Structures are given as structure tokens and as C-alpha cells.
């Protein structure tokens, strides 16, 4: 397995060392969020449209970050960095929203209560991700 390279001509490898663990966790969150969202939307979208739309947004963000991490390269690194920031903002906004106004969310989302149902991984992951992506700069 090649070492992460600083050579500008070669893509920045993001799936190496701690990056592998990160990709694994993002992959797990993607599978979880996508399947949850598909199930919610197919079975009872009407009962909690806001929660289900937010679940779908979270699923897309996770899937996209996983893809950029696997793809590697400087553009992908920057895209992943932006998405991690968006993800963190999403967790904080939705998390705060669910705490302040629980009645808006008859059904929970991945980001409810700052991701408490997912052992707070949703709030820890983007922070770890951004630290790793900054360090992996090409």
C-alpha cells in the first residue's frame, strides 16, 4: 500500500492509516442513514415529512463524503472538507431544533438530539473528519 504522497501530480490518498477507520465509520453511517431514509419515505412519509426529509439529506451527505474519501485527490479532499462542515452544521442545527421543539419531529432523524441514538457518532465524526482532512493536505 503506497504511502500518502505530497507529490502534486499524484492524487492525495485519503484512505490510509487513520483515514481507513474514518472511511469505515462514514460507510457504516451511509448504509444506516440511506436504508433508514428509504424505509421511512417508502412506508410512512406522511406522518413526519420534516424528519424524513432531514434523514434523506443526512443520508446523501454521508454517502457523498464516503465517496469523496474513497476517491481521493485534492479536489475530493476539499469537497469532503466542505461536506464535513455542512454535516457538523446539520447535526448542531437539527440537534438543537429537536431539543427545543420536539413536537416538530414525531419521528426521529439520524441527527436528533445530536445523534444520541447513534452513540453521538454523528457529532464526533465530522470533527474527526475535518482534523484528518486538514492533516492529509496534498
Amino acid at each position: 500500500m503506497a504511502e500518502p504522497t505530497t507529490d502534486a501530480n499524484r492524487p492525495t490518498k485519503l484512505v490510509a492509516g487513520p483515514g481507513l477507520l474514518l472511511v469505515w465509520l462514514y460507510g457504516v453511517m451511509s448504509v444506516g442513514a440511506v436504508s433508514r431514509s428509504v424505509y421511512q419515505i417508502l412506508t410512512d412519509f406522511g406522518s413526519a415529512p420534516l424528519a424524513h426529509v432531514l434523514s434523506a439529506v443526512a443520508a446523501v451527505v454521508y454517502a457523498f463524503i464516503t465517496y469523496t474519501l474513497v476517491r481521493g485527490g485534492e479536489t475530493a479532499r476539499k469537497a469532503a472538507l466542505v461536506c464535513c462542515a455542512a454535516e457538523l452544521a446539520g447535526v448542531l442545527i437539527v440537534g438543537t431544533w429537536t431539543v427545543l421543539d420536539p413536537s416538530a419531529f414525531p419521528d426521529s432523524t439520524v441527527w436528533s438530539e445530536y445523534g444520541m441514538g447513534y452513540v453521538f457518532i454523528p457529532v464526533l465524526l465530522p470533527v474527526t473528519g475535518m482534523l484528518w482532512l486538514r492533516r492529509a493536505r496534498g
Partner: protein
Amino acid sequence: MLDALTVVVGVTALALAAWCGFAAYKDQPTKDWHFIGMAVVTVLALAQLVVGIVRLAQGDEASEGTAIFVSYLIGSALAVPAAGFLSLAERTRWGSATVAAGAVVLAVLEVRLHDIWGG
């Protein structure tokens, strides 16, 4: 049978997580013995998948619904092999850490499976 398997898979997954976590702590990649451990946990998870489907076929119902139950069973069967496969390509402590994380994910899935089946 299904409840017993859920407990056994959960406990062995936690043991695997501790073992691979320890390897990561000692700065070691996953070795043959770790892969044998992963195989054991995976066989148990596959047995759980088969038993779960047989129970559904016999007319039993999961309290949170068949679709969720089967998805979690499939996820459980895939979690550890997927992490193990990744660790083959990353021959450092981070490969071991990934398998440990995969085993923790499996243990969490088992807790959820217990609720989904029996609620």
C-alpha cells in the same frame, strides 16, 4: 434459539472488538488469528441470519416489522467481514482499529435486533 444467538453474537463481537482494539493499541496489524476470530463471529452472524429467516418462514413475526428485521440481520452478517476485508489492505494498527470498530457496530446491531424481534 434466536435470542440465544443474539446474545452469543453480541458477546463474541465485543470480545473480538477488545482483541483487535488491543492489537491496535500494541501497534500491530490484524494477523491470522484475528482473521480466524472474525470468521467465527461471521459464522455465528450467518447462523443468526438463517435462523431468523427460518423463524419468519415458520410464521413468527418481528415486532418492528419484517423488512427492518431482515435488513439488520443482513447488516450484522456483513459488518465484520467488510471491516476484515478493509484491514487486509491496511497492514498497520489502523486496520486492527477498523476491525474493532466493525465488531462494535455488530454488537450495537445485536442490541437493536433484540428490540426489533422481541420489542
